[in-house]
């Protein structure tokens, strides 16, 4: 069944037909190697909350653009 459904011709060549659960697996594989992007405001909120329980969160080493 999975093979039959995903054999549907792609409407866009770079967008494969997936089954439910595939998008999460693809994202996980990518982020395990490339890291997890977190927007600056969310990071600031996490660091502030951590400070509230006396945990110091250091500024992360790498920066990137929000995808």
């Amino acid at each position, binding site marked *: 069944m999975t093979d039959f459904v995903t054999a549907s011709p792609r409407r866009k060549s770079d967008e494969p037909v997936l089954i439910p*659960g595939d998008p999460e697996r693809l994202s996980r594989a990518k982020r395990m190697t490339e890291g997890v992007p977190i927007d600056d*405001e*969310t990071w600031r909120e996490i660091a502030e909350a951590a400070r509230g329980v006396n945990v110091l969160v250091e500024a992360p080493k790498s920066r990137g653009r929000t995808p």
Partner: protein
Amino acid sequence: MSVVVDHAELRRIGRRVFAAAGSSEDEAAIIADHLVEANLKGHDSHGVGMIPSYLGNLHGGKAAANEKGRVVSDSGSFIVYDGARGYGQIVAREATLLGIARAKRDGVAVVALRNAHHIGRVGTYGEMCAGEGLLSISFVNITDQRPAVAPWRGGDARFGTNPVTVALPGPSPERPIIADMATSKIAMGKVRVARNKGEKIAAETLLGPDGQPTDDPNVMYKRPRGALLTFAEHKGYALAFICEMLAGAHHRPRLAYRRDHGDDRFRHRLAPAQIR
């Protein structure tokens, strides 16, 4: 702009934060890993960005550390589990483990979880069941928090983002089939992420407090508050309504409309059926 953080560093931060907030090392690790896995799987709305709200609820007495919850009624294949406000990542996991054991023993199990703090990404529990070769169906409602989603044709919020999750083993063990979705057009966490990034929300997703369409995520953080719309109009609404009935009604009735006003305790109910 955003930062890019390695998953191992996020896990380390999460563990330290929850342990510092009073959780045992094991509990802190389970919560942190759950949140980081949500980020890894692309569900940033349910990831480490929840930490501030979890700690806020803990300090406000709305979440409890080191609380595993307990069975309150047990008729074999139908179990009611009280989360006693424990972290959802802990109590929903316990309830799911119990459901898995019963489904394997009896062929089917229905577990109704109540009084849990935010249970996180519901797909997590579906994955646990699928990993054991089981089908699971979950309906979740949200109580003691201001409603966020408008009924079809309605102009203000009357219920939560009420997710539906169906999970089953897939074509290979590492590829289970997981359908895990809010019945709102987007999750509240995604509104938070858009607000934090200063982005607009897509058209036909949000209503302002006047009941008119808007693209401004800030309407969900003001009083009077706006509302999310359901996905696929009447179809998402029907499923959201079913979540409210199934998750809220088949144990001590506790529906969104009966929430305690002024108490925005962050509780979820989960009613999975696990069929072998």
